[in-house]
């Protein structure tokens, strides 16, 4: 939760997120806007107009940019989660050893007070 709170409080992050969403929306709109049939409800052109194909290709760099940003954010977050999980593993190990110690020492104590066992 601290990570999210930290991010929420950063205005730079909010601006970046907003910008990324806008870019994503624009890229999707321009990429899908030039795809065939559903632009024209009635009276179809028989073949995809050449300029439609070319403008779709011209938008590929935008798509690339959006995907790079999205995946970078994804991997960054995964890295963060991985670190946290690693720490937690360490703490669990510590707990287990502490428990082992405690059980061993209480078993020792019982043996000391009951030598006939």
């Amino acid at each position, binding site marked *: 939760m601290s990570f999210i709170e930290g991010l929420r409080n950063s205005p730079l992050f909010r601006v970046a997120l907003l910008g990324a969403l806008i870019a994503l929306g624009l890229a999707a709109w321009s990429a899908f806007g030039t795809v*065939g*049939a*559903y632009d024209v*409800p009635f009276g179809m052109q028989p*073949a*995809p107009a050449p300029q439609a194909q070319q403008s779709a290709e011209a938008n590929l760099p935008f798509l690339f940019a959006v995907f790079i940003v999205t995946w970078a954010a994804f991997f960054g977050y995964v890295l963060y989660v991985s670190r946290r999980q690693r720490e937690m593993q360490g703490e669990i190990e510590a707990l287990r050893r502490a428990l082992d110690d405690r059980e061993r020492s209480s078993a020792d104590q019982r043996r000391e007070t009951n030598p006939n066992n």
Partner: protein
Amino acid sequence: MSQTDTTIPESAQPQTSLVSSHRVKLLVGLMAIVGALGFFAFQAFEGATVYYYTVAEMKEIGPTPENRTVRVSGKLAADSFHRAEGSTLAEFDLTDGGAILAAAHEGVLPDLFFNDHSEIILEGRYHADGVFVSENVIVKCPSKYIAEEESG
């Protein structure tokens, strides 16, 4: 941390009641899934045990009964496409190289419909007047992916 008892999470506790809320959720969920699978099987095999008929098979089978939908697959016969000015109704012929099937479709057609390499799947009914009226058109994409020629 002065408390001496630790709360054991529910997942680690043994299931004591036979009709626990877990069990109910499971049953409901499983029934939903089995129901969904049964529905899919019904949908998938309704009307035909094959996904589509060829043009020759469709002509042999003849008109489709009411309330049933079938699919037929073929290629667009050359020069057979006809759409009246301003109309949404398209008429064309489907062929498998031998037999020819007259067809009609109301509404939008995907771009690839007009591509030479495309196999067209029509979903609809074969009427007694010899026209296959399709409600849905699926254009099967060619399986070979070829780079387009670099122009210029």
